[in-house]
């Protein structure tokens, strides 16, 4: 199993995320989900990929596959500026708290989500949030879109050293989801 970029997140357990380096199988997995959800964190506001904020890539993904958004921290403001109204403004621990309840109605009232994508949450907090879902939410699967490997997700992108590779994956995903 690969190591996370930040060693404080090292896995101490036997179940770790599958590293996904290709957009195609990832797009397939996402499309198969009945009620996906995209959780966006504040790092997506600060991190840029070749001059373009990460959050804009996340918005592209959400649009491409019509995925509702949960805007954690203070990301709502920027999303509104980008023309997106998030379906939920629960903070990361609040949305995870709800997601782990299989009876929850979800952000659209249609039922709990079965596939949750994460992007823009700092790695230590993100990995902890994923731990909760790993142990307590067998009814859903998770994936991460950041340029770091998150051991506690089901599917995770690898640790990208080169921005271009990350960009390519994200754009490939958008294309595959349309």
């Amino acid at each position, binding site marked *: 199993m690969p190591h996370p*970029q*930040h*060693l404080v997140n090292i896995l101490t357990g036997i179940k770790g995320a599958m590293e996904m380096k290709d957009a195609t199988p990832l797009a397939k997995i996402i499309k198969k989900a009945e009620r996906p959800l995209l959780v966006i964190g*504040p790092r997506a506001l600060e991190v840029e990929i070749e001059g373009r904020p990460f959050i804009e890539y996340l918005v592209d993904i959400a649009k491409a596959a019509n995925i509702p958004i949960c805007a954690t921290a*203070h990301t709502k403001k920027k999303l*509104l500026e980008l023309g997106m109204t998030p379906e939920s*403004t629960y903070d990361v621990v609040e949305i995870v708290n709800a997601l782990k309840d299989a009876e929850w109605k979800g952000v659209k009232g249609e039922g709990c989500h079965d596939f949750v994508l994460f992007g823009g949450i*700092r790695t*230590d907090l993100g990995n902890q949030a994923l731990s909760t879902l*790993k142990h307590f939410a067998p009814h859903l699967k998770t994936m991460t879109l950041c340029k770091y490997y998150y051991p506690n997700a089901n599917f995770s992108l690898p640790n990208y050293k080169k921005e271009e590779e990350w960009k390519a994956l994200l754009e490939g995903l958008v294309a595959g989801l349309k």
Partner: protein
Amino acid sequence: MKGKRKKEEKEKIIRAEDEWEPIGHTPMPHVTDLRNWDRRLLETYKPFYAPFCDLCCLCTYGKCDLTGTNRGACGIDISAQQGRIVTLACCMGMSAHAGHAAHIIDYLIEKHGEDYPIDLGDQVNVECPNIRTVLGLKPKTLRDLKTAVQYAAEQLVHVVSSTHTGQEGDAVDYESKALHISMLDHVCMEAADVAQIIGFKFPTSVADTPLVDMGWGSIDRKKPVILVVGHNPASSSEIIDYLRNKGLEDKVEVAGICCTALETTRYSNKAKVVGPLSRQLFFVRAGIADVIVADEQCIRTDLTDEASKVGSVVIASSDKACRGLEEVSDKPTDEVVKAMVDKGEHCLILDHEKAAEVAVEAALKIAPKRKKEEPIDEKKAIELAKACAACGSCTQVCPNLLPVGPAIQKLAEGDAEPFKQVFENCIGCGKCEEACPHGVPIFKLMQAVASWDTWKCRVGRGPVMDTEIRKVGAPIVLGTIPGVIALVGCSNFPNEIDEIAEMVDEFARRKYIVVLTGCSAMTVGMRKDKEGKTIYEKYPGDFDAGGVVNIGSCVSNAHITGAAMKIANIFANLPLRANYEVIADYVLNRVGAVGVAWGAMSQKAASIATGCNRLGIPVVLGPHSAKYRRLYLSRKEEGDWTVMDGRKKELVDTEEPSPEHLAIVTESKERAMVMIAKLCIRKNDTQPGRQIKLNHYIDLYKKFFGTLPDDLHHFVRTERDIPMFFKKEVKQFLQEKGWKPKPVLSLPTLIGTYETEVPVEATIR
């Protein structure tokens, strides 16, 4: 143990014949005596677990994988295991304070005798609200404080025992034990701080305590420098006394890191505050200290190695941290000093008076001998940074996820700004320098980007005065004071060290009462505004609207729970004595106070926060606190918010999630501020009070999120709750949400919604 003999034993200990208040239901509660309260609390604020490790390695059956529904060899599951670790952490935290309390009380009894009276000045009559409420004892002497600690210590044995293999298996019951021991943490902290205040004559009954110098730049490096690190003022007060007796107070610098800085400046306002825990390694490596006197808690465990590298000498002075050193408490002073001066030998001295003498005499001799390097400048830093090979090892090991490597690269290219940011956000662990295979002296580079400015910190003032509590009663009721915010805890901050000063400024200018303790109290002062003022110079130190109060050190945190208890007692006239359940219920439902532990790191922080939770005070935590493994979250509007109306004795579904959570992690300061404002809302708010609280909630939400709060309709009971500044748009919003008016209660209580001995009448008096 319930029984007649036990009851008699307790009545003897708490002096039942002393009739200052009727004795409540739970004098000196045992582990399970308040269990029903805990279970009721956790019904609404269910434990939320984020397992930090999927394994248990505590016994020889392990390692056991507990992923998902797997059970360990003893049968434990992942939730109970997290509860178990939380309980252990709270025990460690509580015992740190209990140990400190026991030590300091014994030390002061040696000096002043058991009967040394408790007198906290003429503005503080309710001297120990925690001890009064939890034990039912009104302490009068040092002996009484010792009694309180002994009771707590006995409870500790029972709680630690429950973490043994094959003991507790239920997560909620582990939480109950954690809540119990954490409540007792506040008892021990109170005993410690009250003992210190009376024993060392720290300031009390005064709001306008002096401002002292803060910052590594405030230290006169031409003088001999003694650094005190840790928490226990027994060491540092002896040093100050020795200097005063020898007329050397102006000739030797005494500087403190961590809580001992706050204690030392309460004893002498000539002492300096270097800064919080996050600056410990930076300061030690800068070699500014000639002698370092270390006592207990939060000190580098490799301090002696670090000191040797820069020619500083260490005196360890606590049995909690002997550091593998030879104990020389009984050796002749000259001999010890000689070994320190000539050979740089560190030593262990458990006699504080002796340690003080040795420290001063050694410092006087060492200082002229040492060639202290000046802090390096930017030019030198750029040169040294060129050794960086961009391998990325430092970035990988940083616990605060900082881009250390890229910043050093930029520095090598001549741009110091990114590295300055790294320093501002650095939590001071040293892993980066350790991991670097190319010997880049990262902590030395920091000297070039650190600010060598002198800031100001206000001396800790101890308990909130009874008169202050009475004075803020009316404004809190009528709403001109929207809440009490307590910024506490360690310096493991996610971002700039001055995010916390920003939060204090925001809430102080909005007329909240802001109190601070510990490393947070120091950190907030490390920022100057446009006019060159630190936050302590900008706002007064009164416990009143717009006041910024430094309560004191870690053990002073008990005065925060104490203040909440005093509001119930002094303002609402509820008896405290052995009445924990009623008081906690009161605080939860009717006192708009919120704790903020933005950089919580230690086990003590965990027990302090958990102790606040049992009393009904919610806490907002920074992102690192996700690693504590456990939060107390409600399901927001989907939870059950039924309470008993104490006036009509009926159950009422208020539909109002207030306070929404008891312990929550937020990632950004913007989210934290919005959450803090929301968590000050209580069901018994008067209409003017609710208007003002909502005004701030809406205003902050709009500022950071751009819209009205999405959950605003849950907090508007009638139209009179709507702040006038937003009336029209809120009315429209409410209409869109299909909002209907909700009940307004003046006496909401949880008593009566669960199985308890306490009658509903007790909440009214």
